[in-house]
């Protein structure tokens, strides 16, 4: 039965540029002399470093431990000596250096002890912890830790979708992976099937990759996996767009796909799940497309941490008119500050661009409200309206118009006749709103703690008062009662003093009685009586 495909709103048809990098098979990139492995290569908390400069590490050894609920392990990509643990430039739009482990490789490429896990006999929790330990993250670009996404307790799954659409121009890493390693991808899908128990499994591949479709179809024969060719339209590989095309289900605002019974994973993630479980190898390498303005564009299987200039050199170097580099495609790619940054788990493509290949956009002109952006938006938003709100920093209104549904696919940028950098405005607005929400949360927490502290101080004070009152034996309800209590205490003391009776004074000898009488007389008139020195030297001073 042929699947009925659906369509999503909008989308564009930019030039494909896929052929450049699919002419040659995947090449294994040789070991670079130095590996720079950042401790944050995923969404969530950075991993905690487990090594120090001077340590010897083996290939696949854990060098960063996952920290917190959403985090992933980081591994050494090859054997060698850790020479530094320092902030290093990473492919991130901020350009802020992040903590990275720098390894000087010894060339032996010696593996740490690792073993496969038979997933058919393993517990699901065991399988998930294997994924966590192997540092498996979504390789489609979002790099969300897979052990969190694939936790089967969270949902009842109907459809598992494997995303092989690879809709962005220039990139061909998933295409080449499917062509050359379809059997391994199917093994990874089998693990996902065991883990999630879906009713149906669909692999969605854009119809501009006939070789990949054929390879995966022949590899998955009789496995209950459906390989669907979907129309080539950008951004057909967006999670929500792919779900819409394949199932007709629209994922509502603010809801994750699993709430509608769908999980969507990249095929490269399925491949790394196969490596992690069936071979016991953590994610230490990936397929990356090096293309654009380079002499010999092709795909490489490169180690995580390989400096990008090393890969560019392997692709024959760049042509002299190269102006800038992107990590990712031309639509959503991150501009690279330099080629000194390392390859990370998210790097699916290194794109060198000249002005001829992609001219920098001319200066932005005012919005003319042509609404072409709204026609192109695959999320059915009104980018021109969001633009006004972001421009005027009216963030509340932007949120009302579903700013957070924007997937930053840059279709609106592409069609805008005024060349307005719309996505940049949306990113600005999103990060401002996030920062404000974080501040608000911090303020609420501080208020709560402050109020609790005041409550505690008052309670302690009251407890102290009650304790003192108990010790005094009366309830100090008001000041009059207190005064009365003090007065009573004074009188009691006076009475006690008056009532002091000398003891053992009966039957005294006359001499002692005389002495007492003398003392009493002195006490009665201490100032007008002269004290004889010889009789009372002990008391004189």
């Amino acid at each position: 039965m042929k699947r009925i495909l659906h369509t999503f709103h909008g989308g564009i048809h930019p030039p494909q540029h896929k052929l450049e990098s699919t002419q040659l098979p995947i090449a294994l990139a040789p070991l670079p002399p130095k590996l720079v492995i950042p401790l944050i290569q995923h969404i969530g908390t950075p991993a905690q470093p487990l090594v120090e400069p001077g340590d010897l590490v083996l290939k696949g050894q854990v060098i960063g431990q996952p920290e917190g609920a959403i985090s992933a392990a980081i591994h050494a990509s090859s054997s060698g000596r850790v020479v530094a643990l320092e902030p290093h430039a990473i492919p991130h739009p901020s350009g802020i250096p992040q903590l990275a482990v720098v390894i000087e490789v010894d060339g032996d490429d010696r593996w740490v002890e690792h073993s496969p896990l038979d997933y058919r006999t393993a517990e699901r929790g065991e399988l998930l912890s294997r994924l966590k330990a192997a540092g498996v993250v979504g390789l489609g670009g979002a790099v969300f830790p897979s052990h969190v996404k694939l936790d089967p307790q969270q949902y009842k799954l109907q459809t598992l979708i494997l995303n092989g659409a690879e809709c962005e121009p220039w990139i061909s890493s998933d295409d080449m992976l499917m062509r050359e390693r379809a059997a391994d991808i199917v093994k990874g899908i089998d693990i996902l099937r065991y883990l999630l128990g879906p009713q149906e499994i669909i692999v969605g591949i854009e119809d501009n990759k006939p070789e990949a479709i054929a390879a995966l179809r022949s590899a998955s024969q009789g496995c209950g996996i459906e390989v669907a060719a979907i129309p080539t339209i950008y951004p057909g590989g967006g999670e929500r767009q792919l779900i819409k095309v394949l199932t007709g289900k629209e994922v509502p605002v603010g809801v994750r796909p699993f709430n509608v019974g769908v999980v969507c994973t990249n095929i490269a993630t399925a491949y790394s799940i196969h490596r992690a479980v069936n071979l016991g190898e953590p994610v230490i390498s990936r397929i990356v497309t090096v293309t654009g303005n380079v002499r010999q564009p092709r795909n490489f299987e490169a180690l995580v941490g390989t400096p990008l200039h090393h890969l560019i050199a392997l692709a024959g170097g760049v042509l002299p008119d190269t102006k800038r580099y992107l990590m990712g495609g031309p639509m959503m790619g991150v501009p690279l500050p330099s080629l000194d940054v390392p390859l990370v788990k998210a790097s699916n493509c290194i794109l060198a661009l000249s002005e001829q290949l992609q001219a920098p956009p001319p200066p932005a002109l005012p919005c003319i409200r042509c609404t072409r952006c709204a026609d192109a938006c695959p999320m059915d938003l009104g980018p021109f309206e969001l633009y006004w709100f972001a421009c005027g920093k009216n963030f509340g209104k932007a949120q009302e118009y579903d700013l957070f549904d924007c997937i930053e696919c840059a279709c609106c940028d592409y069609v805008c006749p005024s060349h307005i950098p719309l996505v940049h405005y949306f990113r600005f607005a999103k990060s401002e709103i996030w920062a404000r929400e974080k501040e608000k949360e911090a303020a609420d927490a501080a208020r709560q703690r402050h109020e609790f502290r005041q409550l505690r101080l008052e309670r302690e004070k009251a407890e102290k008062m009650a304790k003192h009152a108990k010790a005094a034996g009366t309830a100090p309800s008001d000041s009059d009662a207190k005064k009365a209590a003090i007065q009573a205490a004074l009188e009691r003391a006076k009475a006690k003093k008056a009532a002091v009776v000398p003891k053992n004074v009966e039957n005294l000898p006359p001499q002692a009685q005389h002495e007492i009488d003398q003392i009493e007389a002195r006490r009665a008139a201490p100032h007008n009586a002269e004290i004889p020195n010889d009789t009372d030297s002990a008391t004189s001073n």
Partner: protein
Amino acid sequence: MLIALAVMALLAAVIGTVLGYAAIKFKVEGNPLVERIDAILPQTQCGQCGFPGCRPYAEAIAHGEAEINRCPPGGEEGIHRLADLLGVEFKPFGEDQAQPKPKSVAVIDEPLCIGCTLCIQACPVDAIVGAAKQMHVIIADQCTGCELCVPPCPVECIRMEPIALGVNNWKWDYPVAEITRIPHGKAAS
């Protein structure tokens, strides 16, 4: 005439009942304006406004006893939001008052700490952990950067460190079109 009076009386009775019921049912406890002002204030509890905490300052603003430009941690944006809420004009920070500073957290130089607990008593949000004659530690996530723990320390082992810009608190900048020089001759064409 009688019918008119009766109708008016009936109306008065019905409306009075409804209003009386609403007054009980929908009674608002406290001053809601204080809550809304307090929600805008940054809750550092630093006392730079001259009041012992954010809520007293919010109460003072609500009663018209304090200016809206006394809260440096809230920044100019905080003043703007207070001005919007209260329908008054924006007022910049006075030159003789405390000025906004970059957000920071307190850090204890642990080898110097003598464990006197004075900073723990000063912290308005209980963000310092420690006991008498034990080393104290600041919980950086809970620290509001109020600086109230700095003066009581007898050995001056607490310093304020500005929060470093990292990937987690980095923000996209506002898009600004670059001004580029148009090559000579091209401008005329």
